[in-house]
């Protein structure tokens, strides 16, 4: 599904990712863990196509297509979704309007019909209920004045409506209390499917108690230095990243 080879990326002339290799097959959930500054968020941003994230080397294959050749919105239409660590506030644009515009924009790129207003309303109502989001909140400008937890729930609401093929969750647990973490994780787990891949970027093991990964990769200084099964998270929780940092250095 997502195959990354030798990915090298610089931001403002500083090399952050240094020949990263990663393969996430469809139906699997992989976690990227690593110390601060290792390049975890850079990986997510690069895959999504953020401007100024310059790919100097490497190839990313997404379902048989060259992902890096596509523009940001084309990657989204192809099914790539990045859940932001710090979701942006969009003043003056009601959440509902934002999501519907995005959904129909994606459909247009894929040559599909627009979703009708009643169908959209029905769908969003159902999803909002499971995420404990009040419909009134969806009439407010997206994320403006929302709490950290509310913003993260809005990210999950959007993925549930956009139904992407591949999800990147960037530090989705940051800023969440334990109840919110449960709601958000349940929302993400509901999207686990045999034809969908996920990449969970996190600093802490806590999130992985809720979203159980198939594989864990440790990212240090721009490279994957170690990969293993779910048990790796517990080892990291007990001993920290020091061993891997020292090995890399």
């Amino acid at each position, binding site marked *: 599904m997502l195959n990354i080879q030798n990915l090298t990326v610089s931001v403002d002339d500083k090399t952050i990712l240094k020949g990263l290799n990663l393969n996430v097959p469809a139906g699997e959930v992989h976690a990227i863990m690593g110390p601060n500054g290792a390049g975890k968020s850079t990986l997510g941003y690069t895959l999504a196509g953020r401007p100024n994230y310059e790919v100097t080397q490497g190839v990313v294959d997404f379902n048989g297509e060259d992902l890096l050749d596509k*523009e940001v*919105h084309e*990657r*989204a239409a192809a099914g790539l979704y990045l859940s932001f660590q710090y*979701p942006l*506030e969009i003043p003056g644009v009601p959440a509902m309007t934002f999501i519907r515009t995005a959904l129909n924009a*994606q459909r247009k*790129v894929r040559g599909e019909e627009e979703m009708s207003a009643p169908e959209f309303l029905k769908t969003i109502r159902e999803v909002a209920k499971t995420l404990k989001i009040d419909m009134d909140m969806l009439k407010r400008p997206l994320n403006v004045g929302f709490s950290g937890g509310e913003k993260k729930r809005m990210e999950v609401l959007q993925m549930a409506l*956009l139904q992407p093929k591949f999800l990147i969750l960037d530090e989705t647990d940051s800023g969440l209390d334990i109840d919110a973490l449960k709601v958000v994780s349940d929302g993400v787990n509901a999207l686990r499917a045999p034809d969908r891949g996920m990449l969970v970027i996190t600093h802490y093991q806590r999130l992985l108690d809720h979203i159980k990964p198939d594989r864990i990769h440790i990212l240090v200084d721009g490279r994957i230095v170690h990969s293993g099964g779910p048990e790796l998270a517990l080892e990291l929780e007990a001993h920290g990243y020091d061993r891997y940092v020292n090995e890399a250095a």
Partner: protein
Amino acid sequence: MAAVKETIETVQKLETYAHGFVTDIETEYAPKGLNADIVRFISAKKNEPQWMLDYRLAAFERWQSMDEPDWAKVHYQKVDYQDLYYYAAPKPKPKLNSLDEVDPELLAVYAKLGIPLKEQEVLAGVASAPKYAVDAVFDSVSVVTTFKEELKKSGVIFCSISEALREHPQLVKEYLGSVVPVSDNYFAALNAAVFSDGSFVYVPPGVRCPMELSTYFRINAENTGQFERTLIIADKGAYVSYLEGCTAPMRDENQLHAAVVELVAMEDASIKYSTVQNWYPGDAEGKGGIYNFVTKRADCRGARSKVSWTQVETGSAVTWKYPSCILRGDDSVGEFYSIAVTNGMQQADTGTKMIHLGKNTRSRIISKGVSAGKSSNTYRGLVSAHAKAGGARNFTQCDSLLIGKTCAAHTVPYVESDTASAQFEHEATTTRLSEDQLFYAMQRGLSQEEAVALLVNGFVREVLQELPMEFAVEAQKLLAISLEGSVG
């Protein structure tokens, strides 16, 4: 390569200004240039009473002694006033008895612009869609006004100002120039001398005008100035909502549009005046486009009267325009909601004046400026309170949004108060369209242009909400089109 580039640019131009077509229609002109004889010619064309001709001639004399203002933050090649036609009209047809007799070519023009000039077309629309009456002004003359009969039943007079001069001379004489005197400014004096048409509205006491009124201005002829004159009077306790729209063909030379709009609101009356201005803005290099030098002013003459200006300004090469309110009546209210978008080489210097004369008068100013390309966008406003305007209140909010790094936004607020009990508040912000917000919206599937349009619409939403529903939708589309190619 050059040819290819040119083709691409030409196509882009066509896409960005959809109203740029020229209509080949038989046109009658006054001789080129401006002198007292031209003023007489225009007045004679319209069979005006002697007092009107005298008014025009006095204005012309006054204008000759005045200088063109240069305090606005705009730069443009001065107009050669002797190189213009001051009167251009589609060749006259015999007097029209019904809409069916309007030149089909003219009807086609308005159909192309999406303006329904046939009453049944409006009626044939969605059952729930509100009706609105249209006065269509083509170059110097009003070609047709719809729904006149239906309006007459409720006592509302809606017609061209030329017709009003013939049919209701006393009303025109009483109010014309009572808000914007001839001597007010250079362009107002010029307008008073040579204005050729515009709309006239009178709503009698206690009447709520049963439908939206609108005027659609179209400049078609070459080398022609358009001098529109609009006068709206809402008598005691009356209400009217009026909207104007404007377009022009794409031409390489600049064309002058110098309008004067006067609103009079008597006791307890309320006027809502909305503008969607989309004159041709010129090309990307700043060639051509309309000079939009306009004086708009409302007199809240009676106690508790209210005037609300809403403008969406996306067109014109140069805009010089300050729709204002004189808050004369005690407890009267003035509002100004503005969206001004400039792209390419456009320059806009626009804002408002709220002159508080009466007690406990209130005003509210919400201005949203969006600048892109190499354009310059200035908000200029005056809020003043007279010594007798005890308890006057104003709230002003001026927000500027910059797209890209080559545009400019300026805010020039003047505040004067001669009374200690006035309360004036002013808030202003300037922000650049955030790369992060753009990236976020694009990550969710919006193309760059869609993302810009969505964010800009969010930025101006407060003002869009003030527009009548169906025009708000139009305005939203217009904003997106005006900002095409503004990023990247």
